[in-house]
């Protein structure tokens, strides 16, 4: 019984060192699904809602708008599509493990990329609010001696965001894999006296991993997506408030 915990499988390599892995394929599939879902949800909207589809679409938009209003205030209204995108992408990525796809958020590159986007947003919002000088001055507060710590703190934001998402998803999948392997070992140990293929019947792998998967994939996945967008909104609105 070999247990292997590795990153995404490399499907093929392109020149310039570009590798196409399972992560990319999963991401494309997820993007396609989200795009089609959006298109399907909004394909014939009416002023008086007649279909349940439209109610769902409006509920999604309104929920995100209300959340944004609560956390960031009215002036970040244009931020809503980004937050919705981020949430949808993270949720679908976390749940894609359920459908046998490789979860893009279990790849550090993906979460790091998204966290870098969020970091750029935080930075640009901060600079837009305080100006470059104000931002650089903010790094030296409260005293000049703290500047290295502040710089590290600035960079810790995207790193911790990326690591949080990645760590949660990966720990879920690692624990699932380990448990699965352990249960396989247990069932083959229990059934080892039986002849032939009967020894390979996975009696323990049937129910227990499903329960764990509900926690790690569904609950934790949605929760981490929520936390990711909440942190994004909190950081950006914090950056927008001048010091």
């Amino acid at each position, binding site marked *: 019984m070999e247990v292997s915990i590795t*990153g995404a499988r490399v499907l093929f390599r392109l020149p310039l060192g570009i*590798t196409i892995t399972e992560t990319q394929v999963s991401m494309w599939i997820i993007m396609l699904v989200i*795009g089609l879902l*959006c298109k399907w949800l*909004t394909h014939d909207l009416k*002023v008086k809602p007649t279909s349940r589809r439209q109610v769902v679409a409006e509920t999604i938009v309104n929920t995100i708008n209300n959340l944004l209003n609560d956390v960031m205030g009215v002036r970040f209204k244009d931020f809503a599509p980004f937050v919705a995108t981020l949430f*949808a992408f993270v949720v679908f990525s976390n749940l894609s493990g359920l459908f046998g796809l490789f979860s893009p958020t279990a790849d550090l*590159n993906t979460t790091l990329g998204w966290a870098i986007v969020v970091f750029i947003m935080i930075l640009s919002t901060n600079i837009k609010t305080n100006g470059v000088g104000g931002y650089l001055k903010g790094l030296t507060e409260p005293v000049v001696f703290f500047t290295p710590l502040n710089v590290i703190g600035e960079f810790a934001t995207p790193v911790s965001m990326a690591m949080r998402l990645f760590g949660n998803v990966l720990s879920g999948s690692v624990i699932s894999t380990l448990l699965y392997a352990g249960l396989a070992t247990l069932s083959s140990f229990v059934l080892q006296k039986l002849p032939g293929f009967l020894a390979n019947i996975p009696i323990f792998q049937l129910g227990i991993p499903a329960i764990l998967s509900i926690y790690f994939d569904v609950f934790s996945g949605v929760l981490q997506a929520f936390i990711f967008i909440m942190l994004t909104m909190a950081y950006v609105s914090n950056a927008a408030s001048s010091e």
Partner: protein
Amino acid sequence: MAETLELLSIDFWQTLMAIGNLIILYFIVKKFLYKPVNEILESRAKEVDDIYSEAENMRKEARTYKETYEDKLNKVKNETDQMIKKATESAKLRSEEILNEAIAEADNERRKAENDIYLAKKKAMEDLSTKVSSMVVELSKQIVQKEIDLDAHQKLIDSAIDKLGESV
């Protein structure tokens, strides 16, 4: 076993692709979810606004109508009041006039009657006095004649009485 990435590896292109995918998805969501839904929400808000403003207009109109009607009603009431007042006044005036006329007429009548009565009385008195005097003259004449003509006495008395009867 296929080739895999390290569990914790950072690849520049992969990170860039993740960023690119996020941005592409952002535009997809913006175009396919947010734009139509926002349009619908806006048009609904506009419709609601329209309905509200329409209702407001109708209320205003109704209020103006009400005011006009109230004005008209007040006017009519005033007019009627005035008319009634006028009518009452004129009726009062007329009745007083009639009364005064009646009183005056009655006065006139009475005066006339009194006058008549007075004249008649006077005339009667005059008549009476002339008659009495003439009767006295007649009587005295007759008394005188009787002494003269006894035979004619009876005849004279009769004629005198006749004459008296005629004159009275």
